[in-house]
């Protein structure tokens, strides 16, 4: 294992429902300052800026202006919720290439405040739009229908993912939904796009985050315990669900093995799974595609609370997009939680002895898959 880069400070902005008049840039700024301060740096140290935001067409320009910085390297890669895991990969690459030394990744969304329709570009595909899919949920519902058909995955197994997330969220003071949730509650919730109901769908909240990435050499001077980026890889297979080659096999089957090979790790060595849970079907697909169980066995793998607190496979320990926070593009919050767990700072929900975390971002409609393997301070 060799560290490609080190993640220093991380921070969440205000989450959930933000104050009237808040702009996405406010959340970026709030999180950026907190993340930099945590590791002993300031805005003046930042020379690489990475951002994506559905409300900002030129997010690095908006963030740079707001923060008052003039980065020499910027990357506004936009691949939906997975973008920020890609930014980690790109930041490490830029640092390795000498293009920047201190990379700042930022995100902010006020989608709850302004309404979902006002928060993202409404992009109509002429070959799908006539049938009025309720996207993104319809696309994930189609994948879930196919998974149930091919492998016998049940609504109860899908519900296990939501219940596991909720049990973790109940341990997280920042969790948005913290009331008790049972499998029966998930099954009885109103349907949105069969087989998915309201509790199979991620939250619609505001929120933002920031993370600081530096070289392994520079990490020694930071105030935070170094969390290492051991491997990162990306893949994407389509933009629209009707173009997805196989609805039960995602491009995580490409990004995962590449990230593992780069890190010199195997799934058996992972202590914490942070798998983007936009809908209950997504972690099931990723557990299979990333090699934690065989194809088709994801439903059985999550059954019986195996990924919940006290279970053998801690997954989405912040409560996930399903119960903690989902501001539209949730990927950077996966990184924040993994870093805190690897530093041992996760409080009541701390995974004992977590040394290696897998962060997996999903973007679009199972379109973009970005995998990163992070290591605790002992891996530097």
């Amino acid at each position, binding site marked *: 294992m060799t560290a490609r880069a080190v993640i220093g400070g991380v921070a969440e902005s205000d989450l959930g429902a933000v104050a009237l008049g808040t702009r996405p840039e406010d959340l970026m700024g709030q999180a950026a300052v907190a993340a930099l301060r945590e590791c002993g740096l300031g805005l003046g140290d930042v020379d690489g800026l990475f951002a994506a935001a559905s409300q900002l067409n030129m997010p690095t320009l908006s963030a740079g202006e707001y923060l008052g910085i003039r980065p020499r390297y910027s990357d506004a890669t936009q691949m939906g919720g997975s973008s920020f895991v890609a930014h980690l990969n790109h930041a490490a690459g830029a640092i390795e290439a000498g293009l920047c030394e201190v990379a700042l990744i930022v995100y902010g969304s006020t989608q709850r405040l302004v309404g979902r329709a006002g928060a993202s570009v409404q992009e109509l595909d*002429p*070959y*799908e739009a*006539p*049938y*009025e*899919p*309720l996207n993104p949920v*319809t696309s994930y*519902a*189609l*994948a879930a*229908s*196919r998974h149930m*058909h091919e492998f016998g995955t049940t609504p109860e197994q899908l519900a296990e993912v939501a219940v596991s997330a909720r049990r973790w969220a109940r341990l997280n003071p920042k969790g948005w939904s913290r009331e008790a949730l049972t499998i029966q509650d998930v099954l009885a919730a*109103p*349907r*949105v*796009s*069969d*087989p998915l109901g309201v509790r199979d769908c991620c939250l619609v909240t505001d929120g933002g985050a920031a993370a600081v990435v530096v070289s392994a050499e520079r990490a020694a001077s930071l105030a935070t315990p170094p969390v290492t980026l051991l491997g990162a890889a990306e893949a994407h297979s389509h933009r629209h*669900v*009707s*173009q997805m080659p196989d*609805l039960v096999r995602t491009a995580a089957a490409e990004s995962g093995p590449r990230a593992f090979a780069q890190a010199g790790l195997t799934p058996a060595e992972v202590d914490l799974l942070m798998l983007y849970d936009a809908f209950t079907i997504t972690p099931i697909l990723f557990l299979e595609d990333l090699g934690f169980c065989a194809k088709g066995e994801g439903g059985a793998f999550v059954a019986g609370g195996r990924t919940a607190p006290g279970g053998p496979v801690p997954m989405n320990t912040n409560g996930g997009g399903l119960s903690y926070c989902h501001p539209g593009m949730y990927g950077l919050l996966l990184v924040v939680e993994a870093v805190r767990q690897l530093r041992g700072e996760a409080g009541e929900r701390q995974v004992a002895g977590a040394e290696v975390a897998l962060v997996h971002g999903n973007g679009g409609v199972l379109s973009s898959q970005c995998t990163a393997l992070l290591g605790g301070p002992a891996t530097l």
Partner: protein
Amino acid sequence: MEESPRAHFLAACARGVLAYQWDPAAQRAVFYPRVLAGLQWRESAGAGTVYATTIVRPRDGEPRGIVLVDLDEGFRMMSRVRADVVRIGDRVQVAFDGDGVPVFDPV
């Protein structure tokens, strides 16, 4: 380009034909239609199999079924099936609704 792929497709729909493209180099069907070198237009026989299904249930409004259909020529498209119950694996045949939009009927 004198005619966009979309215009060609819609003109075929207006004639009651489901048009798709064939990539002779890769020996495979291509859908949606695009502007890429060497693609040839073909007409589908319109027979296919339901690959995935969902029913969208709006808070206000009628539920609507949506499917992905695998056409026998080897391409897939989103559509709807004009039937009360639709299952993965059902055989379906293309038809065109009042707006010329391709939909499917059970066989």
